[in-house]
Structures are given as structure tokens and as C-alpha cells.
């Protein structure tokens, strides 16, 4: 890719040229290569396609390419064959010869690899008809499946950089700013602050040197939307960033990528190089006279560094801790200069708004929240993956229609949104439309988009403890309310989980919560009590059970749970006895097995290995464990 584009016409010519060279009727095999599918072996799958296509002499007829994340992470490796949009799921390298022979050569569907409706049993080969995809509105993430992230040509072929061209040549910076303000793009990183307003503050702040920043520190555990965008379509974020820089008057930018995302870092650096070669970054972009360069800055494993002022400190080479000074970073950010920081997804929304206009953008969403939002729908849900819906879609729509509901016949309990700053939302609120303000009213928040579904086997006290534990490690430790307050809250929760909870513990948790949220230096501490408070609000009965009855209703909290082999069901198969890592199971051939409770470490292996036709191992909580059977008790044989 060596042509340097020196005008919008050059870009259009390039785009037309690329499209002219692509026969739309020619089959293209796209293989998802996001980190998730790579964990499933997608690199082997793509190689298998390349090899098999070559072996069958089809190189001239078929193209196979690795694309960004398709979103249906539960069913990886995801493969889509265009133009028919045949979607194959759970593809392994061993399936490839059949796919090539049947589908590519004979136009026959391989039924075993298509999506199977869990209720009707019908096969659904077409991607757009699969419920997971059908009920989404994939304006942003949808492009991933057409684009090889290492190919700027793919991006340009999809209309990429046309928004930048329009902004630079048909709009003034003020007009771009106005459009973004009218669209009311709110920060997708969790804050929900109107991006246009922030841009304006930065633009108007005194000083000639301004910076724009992409926050790809995505630290909420369970949320990986930004990773998929940055890995799968880095150019979309770059384009948004340059447009923003133009509107704000910044000529230098930074993309802060967390250290745990090596593929996103690699693909972003590659995209920057390609864009630079094309004249879409650097000096005199597209011949417009506007200069802009951008650098990638890697994080090193600290959740708190995703906080705006902390991130900027990190870019300066100092420790990535939030700063005490009360001055907005839009006015005084990196090296004291006005700096506009936005989340990956926020930037990715910008080209859309410029191309199609604020009015179109505002036709989607709710009164206060426009456009779409990408969520990572994970946990106890059938169809886990990345989901994009218009703001205002209900939780029920997301969890059931797209997510397919709760697997294994279990009951929905709650959905956690907003990560460690958010809260749990119980069943009675499933019809709540998801937007920035509605979720906040319920005591949670939208956050960056993590949506973790929990069922009856999850303990809400355990969840609260999980988040506090996370925060106690991630807190920078500078201020007392956060460091010491969270430490004490965690100790109380530990006691409750260990069976040493006492009356007054919940009230003390609430008292600590108030001080921590009021007095902490930054939003990490400021929102740290939210998971605890929301679980107390909606699941107080679970706290009371742990404290008063020493019982964990979901049977999760190890100290409150005992494993017990039901004598009547045991068939003395010896499997649990042999597998117990602590040698805590007694019994023998024909003799009922029983667990010596004092040796049991509650690892759960016995439950795991007991054959399902016996189901002899159960968990007890809040009740005394029956005494072991008399010595040498024989089993009750079942036919």
C-alpha cells in the first residue's frame, strides 16, 4: 500500500479501485480472529482454510480471511461465508475440508455446523436469522466481520475514512463540533459525559498545544468491547480520533492500550503505520493542511490507570495514579495542556455521526441516551458474547432474546452492570430500558458495558466480596477512605462469609460506604461501595442468612458449605474416593462412602466426578451434616 493519498478524490479513486477488483459474487470465507476465538484455535482454522483451498485448486475462486471479532463468543470459532452469509459455529480445523467441499464447491450447507435453535431444533444457516444476531443493531461492531484488521483496504472498501474526508473538506472544525454536540454522543467508557461538551471545553481552553486521547484501558473485569473494536477495526477508532482532533485543534494524540491486550496493541500500531503511509495520518492529511500524529502507549497492569487523570499521568511517564488537583483535564491535562480523553467506543461513534448526521443518530436511543451501545453479555447466559443494541433496549431483550436466557434450566437471579462501580439488578427490573440514566436510578450504572448474568447458583454476598477484593488490589492506595475503608469492608464481608457475621455488620457496611463514596480522592473509591450497596438493597435476605443462620442460600461460600454423600444414593463406585485430593473419603467396595468433614477442603471434586446416574453428592449449608454411617454399612443396590 504505497500510494499516498493527497486529496479526497484520491481516496475515492482508491476506494473505487479496490471495489472494482472485488467481485461481489465471489465467495469470501471470514474467520473470526479476536482473542476469544484465537483461544478456540482460530489461527489453525484460518490456516486450514488456506491450505484446503490451495489443495483443491480454488485459490482463484475463493478468498479466506481472518477478521475481527464477530461477537458470538460462546460459539467460537465463528466462520461466515459471503455472499450468502452462511454462518458456521464452533468450527475446528478438522471441519474445514468438509466446509470447502460441501459449501464452497457444492453449495451445500453443513448442517452440523450451523446454529441450532435450542427450542425448535431447527438449523439456521443464515447469519442474519440467528436470534443472537437478528435482535441486535450492529452499527459499529458489525463491520468487524467484513474487515481484516491488518488491511486498510478492507476498511476503505467499507467506506472507511469518508467521514474524515468530509470533515476536513466540507466542514469547519466548529461545524464538526456542532454536529457531535447535537448528536449528544455520551462517553461510552462509563462516565456518560457528553463528548461534544468535553471537546468544546478542550477546544476553548487557553493554549495552542492540545491533545486527544483514546482510553483503551478497559479494566472492568468481564468487559471486552473495546478490545474487540481495537483489535478488529482499529481504523474506525483512528478515523474518529482524527476527526475529533480536527474539531478540537489538537495535532497530537495518544492511544493508551492496557498491557493485557497485546493483539489490540499490535493491530493498532499496524493500522497507524498503514494510515501514515496512505497520508491519512501525519502531515497534511489528504492534502487538507491538517497535521496529526498518534502514538500508542502501553499500560502495565493497573485498573486505576484508566481513570482520566491517572492515565494522563502515566502518559507523562509518572505513576498512573489519580491526581489530587481539582482542575478538569480538558483544561489542564497532559503536561498541563488541554487534553480530551474519550473511550474507544465513543471515538468509533464519531465517523458514523459525521457521515450520516446527528439527526439520524438521534433517531435511535432514548431521550437522554442516543445511538447504540456495545455490551459484553457474559456469565450464566446461553449466548455469551458482544452485543450491540440501540440505547433503550430492555434488559430482558438483551438477556433473553439475544442472550437466549439462562442455560441448564436455572433461574435468573440478577444482572450486574457497570463493573466494580456498578450494581446488581434483580428480576423485577428486567423490563428496564438500558440507558445511562435508567440504570443509575436503580442503583447501578451503565458503566463501560459489562453485563454479567447471574443465576440461582450465584451468591450475592460472594459477588459483593469479589468486587471489593478486586478494588482492594486495584486501588492506588493513596487516600485513606478508599484504601482503609475498602480494607475494612472486605474484612467484614470475609467474616460474614466465614460464618462469623454479627448483627450490625450490614449497618456498618452502609456507614463505611457513605464515607468512602463521599470522601475518596477519585471515582474508584467514589463508586467502590456500589456493588455492596446494591446487593444489600435487593438481596438483604442473603446477607441475613449468612449472618444469622450461617447459611449460604446459593451454596457458594465455602466456609458455610459442607459436602455430603447421601448414603441411600451411594453405589460405592469408588470414583470419588480415589479422586479426593485430601483422601477425605472413607468406604470401599460395596461399602457406603462418606466424607470425613474435618479433612474436607470443599474442592468440589467429589461432586464433579460422582456419576450423574447416582447423584449421590450434595452440598449442605446452614444445617448440621448428618453423622457418618455406621462402620461397614453396605450400599443399597439399585437396579
Amino acid at each position: 500500500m504505497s500510494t499516498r493519498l493527497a486529496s479526497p478524490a484520491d481516496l475515492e479513486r482508491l476506494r473505487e479501485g479496490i471495489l472494482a477488483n472485488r467481485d461481489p459474487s465471489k465467495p469470501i470465507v471470514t474467520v473470526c480472529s479476536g482473542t476469544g476465538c484465537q483461544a478456540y484455535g482460530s489461527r489453525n482454522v484460518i490456516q486450514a482454510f488456506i491450505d484446503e483451498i490451495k489443495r483443491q485448486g480454488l485459490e482463484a475462486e475463493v478468498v479466506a480471511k481472518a477478521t475481527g471479532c464477530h461477537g458470538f463468543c460462546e460459539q467460537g470459532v465463528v466462520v461466515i461465508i459471503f455472499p450468502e452469509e452462511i454462518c458456521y459455529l464452533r468450527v475446528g480445523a478438522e471441519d474445514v475440508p468438509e466446509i470447502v467441499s460441501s459449501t464452497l464447491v457444492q453449495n451445500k450447507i453443513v448442517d452440523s455446523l450451523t446454529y441450532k435453535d435450542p427450542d425448535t431444533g431447527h438449523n439456521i444457516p443464515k447469519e442474519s436469522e440467528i436470534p443472537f444476531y437478528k435482535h441486535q443493531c450492529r452499527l459499529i461492531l458489525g463491520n468487524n466481520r467484513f474487515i481484516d484488521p491488518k488491511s486498510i483496504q478492507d476498511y476503505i472498501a467499507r467506506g472507511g475514512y469518508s467521514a474524515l474526508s468530509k470533515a476536513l473538506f466540507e466542514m469547519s472544525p466548529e461545524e464538526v463540533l456542532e454536529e457531535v454536540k447535537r448528536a449528544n454522543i455520551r462517553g461510552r467508557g462509563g462516565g456518560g459525559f457528553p463528548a461534544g461538551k468535553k471537546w468544546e471545553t478542550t477546544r476553548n481552553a487557553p493554549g495552542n498545544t492540545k491533545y486527544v486521547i483514546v482510553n483503551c484501558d478497559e479494566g472492568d473485569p468481564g468487559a471486552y468491547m473495546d478490545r474487540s473494536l481495537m483489535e478488529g477495526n482499529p481504523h474506525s477508532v483512528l478515523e474518529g480520533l482524527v476527526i475529533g482532533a480536527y474539531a478540537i485543534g489538537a495535532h497530537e494524540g495518544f492511544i493508551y492500550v492496557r498491557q493485557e491486550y497485546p493483539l489490540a496493541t499490535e493491530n493498532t500500531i499496524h493500522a497507524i503505520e498503514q494510515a501514515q503511509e496512505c497520508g491519512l495520518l501525519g502531515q497534511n492529511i489528504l492534502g487538507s493542511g491538517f497535521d496529526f500524529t498518534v502514538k500508542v502507549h502501553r499500560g502495565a497492569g493497573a485498573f486505576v490507570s484508566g481513570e482520566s487523570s491517572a492515565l494522563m499521568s502515566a502518559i507523562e511517564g509518572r505513576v498512573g495514579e489519580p491526581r489530587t488537583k481539582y482542575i478538569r483535564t480538558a483544561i489542564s491535562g497532559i503536561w498541563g495542556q488541554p487534553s480530551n480523553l474519550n473511550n474507544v467506543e465513543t471515538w468509533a461513534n464519531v465517523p458514523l455521526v459525521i457521515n450520516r448526521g446527528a439527526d439520524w443518530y438521534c433517531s435511535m436511543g432514548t431521550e437522554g441516551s442516543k445511538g447504540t451501545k456495545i455490551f459484553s453479555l457474559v456469565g450464566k447466559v446461553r449466548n455469551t458474547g458482544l452485543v450491540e443494541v440501540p440505547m433503550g433496549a430492555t434488559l430482558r431483550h438483551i438477556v433473553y432474546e439475544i442472550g437466549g436466557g439462562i442455560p441448564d434450566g436455572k433461574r435468573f437471579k440478577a444482572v450486574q452492570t457497570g463493573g466494580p462501580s456498578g450494581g446488581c439488578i434483580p428480576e423485577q427490573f428486567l423490563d428496564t430500558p438500558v440507558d445511562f440514566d435508567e440504570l443509575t436510578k436503580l442503583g447501578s450504572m451503565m458503566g463501560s458495558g459489562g453485563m454479567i448474568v447471574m443465576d440461582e447458583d450465584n451468591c450475592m454476598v460472594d459477588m459483593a466480596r469479589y468486587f471489593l477484593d478486586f478494588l482492594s488490589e486495584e486501588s492506588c492506595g493513596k487516600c485513606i477512605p478508599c484504601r482503609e475503608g475498602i480494607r475494612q469492608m472486605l474484612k467484614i464481608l470475609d467474616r460474614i462469609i466465614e460464618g462469623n457475621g454479627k448483627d450490625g455488620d450490614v449497618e456498618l457496611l452502609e456507614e463505611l460506604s457513605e464515607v468512602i463514596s463521599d470522601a475518596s480522592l477519585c471515582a474508584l473509591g467514589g463508586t467502590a461501595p456500589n456493588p455492596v450497596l446494591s446487593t444489600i438493597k435487593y438481596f438483604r435476605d442473603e446477607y441475613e442468612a449468612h449472618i444469622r443462620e450461617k447459611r449460604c442460600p446459593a451454596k457458594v461460600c465455602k466456609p458455610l458449605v459442607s459436602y455430603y454423600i447421601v448414603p441411600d444414593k451411594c453405589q460405592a463406585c469408588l470414583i470419588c474416593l480415589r479422586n479426593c485430593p485430601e483422601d477425605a473419603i472413607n468406604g470401599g467396595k460395596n461399602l457406603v462412602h462418606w466424607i470425613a468433614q474435618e479433612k474436607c477442603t470443599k474442592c468440589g471434586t467429589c461432586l464433579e466426578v460422582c456419576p450423574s446416574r447416582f447423584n449421590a453428592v450434595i452440598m449442605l449449608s446452614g444445617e448440621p451434616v448428618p453423622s457418618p454411617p455406621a462402620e461397614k454399612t453396605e450400599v443399597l443396590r439399585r437396579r
Partner: protein
Amino acid sequence: MKTLTLEIDGKQAQVREGMTLLEAAKELGIEIPTLCYREGLAPYGACRLCSVEIIRDNRSRIVASCAYPVEEGLIVKTDSPRVTNIRKMLIELMLAIAPGVKVLEDLAAQYGVEGARFEAEPDFCILCGLCVRYCAEIKKANAIGFAGRGIERTVVFIPEIASKTCMSCRECFSICPTAKIPSETDGVCFLDLTIDDFLSRRLR
């Protein structure tokens, strides 16, 4: 220098732009408790004891007065119930780490903090950062610094520098509000408080 007007605890005041709320309150004769604040050092905002309530456009917020700059028309409350609750809890939290320390006991008496709801786990360092900041900003020696984060965060001496500069200085001894530094160093600097000790503790 521009002046502006704000209200602190019901009193109107004319203050210079660029002052912090803490400085403005002091000029009005209003005492706000502090621990990590020290004149001559940049505000640090770690102890949060100087928290005050500010009201603007009918919305109230808690901020650290040692760092918050004065603003035209701001209404400040230095001892509202919300603020008092915060201070009491902060004192309780600090007493759990540094029980019996005079400056904390005095504050506890002043704010009516009784009893200890949190189990004492004496370490005595409340991470106010005065030693680190003083050594960096005033002495420009950087012999002492922070290591780790969250509950692992500790103050550590850097042997390569401390061995050359500390013996003849020891000014951090009297700055430490809980006397942690003098008590640990026993006349010889940095007994158990070096970066190497920190790293070997991590391995345990």
C-alpha cells in the same frame, strides 16, 4: 491579584484567586483539621481529613479543602454533619492502623470518636506521604519513596541513596505524625523499611 467572594460557614469572605479553601478558611480564623497537609509542600489529598462540603447550583459535593481552589460564589461548610461523619470515620480507620498515637487520640477526643469498631492492626504508617514529599520537594534527595499499590502500598527507603544522605539529615523523623519513622529506625536509618525488605515480603 484578582479577589473573589465566597461564603464559609455562613461568613462572607473576600479571598485572593489561587488560594485553596483551606488557606481561605485559615484567614477567616476557621480551623480545618489536616494530617497530610504541610505548608511548603504541594497539597497531596491523602488523608481527606480536611474534607469540606461545597454547594453550588443547589448541588453539594465533598472536596479536600487543601487542594480545592476558591471560586466566586461558592458556599462552603467546614463542619456540617456530613463532614463530621466523614472525619469521625477517617479517624476510626486511622486508629486501627496507628492506635494510641497522640495526634489521632486528640482528634478522636475532639470529634467524639469512642470505641474501636475496627480491629487494630498496628503498622503505624498512615501513608500521609509527608516523609516522601518532604525528602523529594524540600531536601531534593529522594531517599525515600512509595512501593506497591492498594493495601500493599508502603513507604520504603532506597538504600543506594539513603546510605549517603540520611545519617546527616533525619528531618523526616520529626515530620512523621505517627512517629513511625523514628520508631522503626532506632537511631540507624532504614532498618526494615527498604525496598529490598518490601520485595522480600512479597515473596513470603
